[in-house]
């Protein structure tokens, strides 16, 4: 009976599952797997410079391609360094397979060199995890892991493989089936869909509140959303994670909602009579003060995860289903019953009034580059190239969400739930690996970019032409903004002191470096960045003290938006301070 080592079995199953790219970093406890990968014809290994980079790169790859991202790291520090990326993928429902080496089974628990309790550490930040103690179990475990990571609500699955299990052999004859214990929602119950369609058809002020679940459900879900919006005539808003599912150029688009969402989106959420939440989860960044959240609406919630129902907001009609399928069912029912698209004239005229507030306007300057202006110009210069945009976390992320506009899914990669600084550059690398011909830009801040800046070498090694566009205001801008709003401008530790010379740094890594601080020269500088056939770091020196508005302060309702800096008080009561 033919036998193979655990490492070889693992690689065979990865190939069987369609894996062509693995992001990883070698170390003692994964050497047998790396040996099996040596000059492998079907699997390309991308050597990152820090395991956090591996996890975020895999996230970027997954988000941009729709396929699961695969991570391979060693035991102990290799695994613990990857934990932030695993937690990030868990919060944002990104399918990852994380393969971690472990010390040999007979050494587990002995405080061996580079031993960490990886399954213990990742238990509550992964969708599922395994410790494989016998190579004969590997094929079934890995097959099941791919099902769990990608089906239902996607998420990261960790497989911890002790070194002796990688070396020991097992029969390859046994066709171990993927175990079928994992069940997940698919189509919705038609009774629920009928009721939902009736509610929408009879609404005077409906709204579609969409989220990342639509992106996860696949491109057909985005198409269904467009059709549903057109049929119902309802306005569409989206969470940070859902941008691109409905085109920003579409007529029904209100912009993003939530803490830094548009005035019209938040007012429409507050005033609607029927809210249809599609693949979103009523996150605290979206709802603001819960007891004042959309007080008069009937709420329909379509989500594939039953635990998202009634978690923070009580809904009237929970529908546990794949959001793409449920929307398709709604469309079928709508058409089958020959409902007419309602003009909703009064509702749209109120929305037009809110739009007239022009909440995203900002003070212009001919002397300095305003950060919003930089995003606008970047958008104008790249919008015909269907770019993939990644971000770090902070003000630049929110400005990008507000001023860069997405017309297609899988083009917007950002750390929403966990809010991980250092996500953007490795995510851009992963997205570029999955889309070699795409224009991939990491919109960054000067503080965030330093959290995984070592990944510049990865881009150099694989000749990935990623662009890093840094809005450099020399502050951890979002921290400074909150200190201004909440702590009377006591700027505790939020100044980005001792910054590197980003142009010199770019050159040190073999990148091109560009610096610009003049609004008149910005377009040319962006053109120069785009014309360069290789990685570019763009140090865009922006107005230092701009804040990101509109903003719903923590603990406030949608109707209490701060639109401009002159509405800021500088203090906050303890109840509000206690909220994140």
């Amino acid at each position, binding site marked *: 009976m033919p036998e193979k080592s655990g490492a070889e079995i693992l690689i065979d199953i990865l190939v069987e599952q369609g894996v062509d790219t693995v992001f990883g970093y070698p170390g003692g406890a994964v050497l047998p797997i790396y040996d099996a990968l040596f000059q492998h014809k079907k699997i390309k290994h991308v050597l990152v410079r820090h395991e956090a980079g591996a996890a975020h790169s895999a996230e970027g790859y997954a988000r941009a391609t729709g396929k699961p991202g695969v991570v391979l790291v060693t035991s102990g520090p290799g695994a613990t360094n990857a934990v932030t990326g695993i937690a990030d993928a868990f919060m944002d429902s990104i399918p990852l397979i994380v393969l971690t080496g472990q010390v040999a089974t007979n050494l587990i628990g002995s405080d061996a060199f580079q031993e960490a309790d990886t399954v213990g550490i990742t238990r509550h930040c992964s969708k*599922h995890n395994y410790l494989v103690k016998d190579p004969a179990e590997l094929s079934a475990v890995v097959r099941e892991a791919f099902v*769990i990571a990608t089906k239902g609500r996607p998420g990261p699955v960790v497989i911890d493989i002790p070194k002796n299990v990688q070396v020991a052999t097992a029969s390859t004859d046994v066709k171990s089936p993927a175990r079928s*214990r*994992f069940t997940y929602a698919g189509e919705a119950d038609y009774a629920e869909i009928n009721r939902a369609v009736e509610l929408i058809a009879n609404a005077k002020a409906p709204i579609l509140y969409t989220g990342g679940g639509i992106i996860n459900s696949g491109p057909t879900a985005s198409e269904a959303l467009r059709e549903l919006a057109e049929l119902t005539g309802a306005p569409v808003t989206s969470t940070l994670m859902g941008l691109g599912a409905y085109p920003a150029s579409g007529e029904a688009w209100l912009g993003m909602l939530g803490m830094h969402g548009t005035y019209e989106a938040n007012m429409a959420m507050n005033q609607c009579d029927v809210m249809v939440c599609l693949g979103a989860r009523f996150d605290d960044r979206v709802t603001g003060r819960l007891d004042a959240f959309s007080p008069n609406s009937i709420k329909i919630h379509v989500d594939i*995860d039953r*635990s998202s*129902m*009634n978690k923070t907001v009580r809904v009237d009609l929970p529908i546990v289903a794949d959001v793409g399928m449920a929307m398709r069912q709604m469309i079928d029912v709508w058409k089958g019953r020959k409902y007419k698209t309602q003009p909703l004239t009064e509702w749209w005229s109120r929305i037009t009034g809110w739009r007239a507030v022009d909440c995203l306007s900002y003070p212009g300057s001919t002397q300095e580059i305003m950060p919003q202006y930089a995003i606008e110009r970047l958008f104008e210069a790249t919008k015909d190239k269907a770019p993939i945009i990644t971000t770090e976390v902070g003000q630049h992320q929110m400005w990008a969400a507000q001023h860069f506009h997405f017309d297609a899914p899988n083009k917007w990669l950002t750390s929403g739930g966990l809010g991980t600084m250092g996500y953007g550059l490795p995510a851009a690398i992963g997205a570029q690996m999955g889309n070699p011909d795409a224009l991939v830009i990491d919109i960054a801040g000067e503080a965030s970019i330093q959290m995984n800046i070592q990944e510049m070498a990865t881009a150099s090694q694989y000749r990935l032409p990623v662009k890093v566009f840094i809005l450099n205001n020399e502050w951890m801008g979002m921290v400074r903004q909150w200190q201004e709003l909440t702590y009377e401008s006591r700027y505790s530790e939020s100044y980005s002191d001792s910054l590197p010379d980003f142009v010199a740094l770019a050159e040190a890594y073999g990148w091109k470096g560009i610096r610009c601080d003049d609004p008149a020269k910005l377009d040319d500088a962006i053109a120069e960045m785009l014309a360069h056939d290789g990685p570019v770091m763009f140090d865009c020196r922006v107005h230092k003290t701009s804040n990101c508005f509109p903003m719903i302060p923590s603990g406030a309702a949608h109707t209490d938006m701060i639109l401009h800096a002159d509405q800021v008080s500088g203090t906050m009561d303890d109840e509000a301070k206690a909220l994140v």
Partner: protein
Amino acid sequence: MHIKQELTERHVLTLTVDNEAGTLARIAGMFTSRGYNIDSLTVADISEDHTTSRITIVTKGPPPVIDQIIAQCERLIPVHKVTDLTEAGPHVERELALVKVNGTGDQRVEAMRLADIYRARVIDATVNSFIFEITGGPEKIDTFVSLMREVGLVEVGRTGIVGLMRGADAS
């Protein structure tokens, strides 16, 4: 500012789970990481082929939290079924306790008399001690233990609650 407390309800949940390494840690840890309470937890293999265990958890929380607890349990891969006995209707709950009492003379006689009333059995005896075995609902055991405190209680071991739905059907 002060931390607010909410009114809670007691619920008995039973979970059918895969009998594999880490399942209990996954469930117990999920309760901790999401800030839920566990008043008692029991687990034992219940299937002929040793692949399935049944876990009984007694928890407390406001009704929306109980609903979340059930949903979060169901989300775990090795958890196949969650039943809220409290919500599902008439059910029985039983717990077993071992109660050790030291004493001589009248105290010892009184312990025996009370044990008899509560239908506790003696499973170990020396000239100055007993171990009683008692089963029943948690309140009966609470009462018995507090009575034993008066007559020389040394220590108590309790299993935590197991429960089943009344009637012919499986829960």
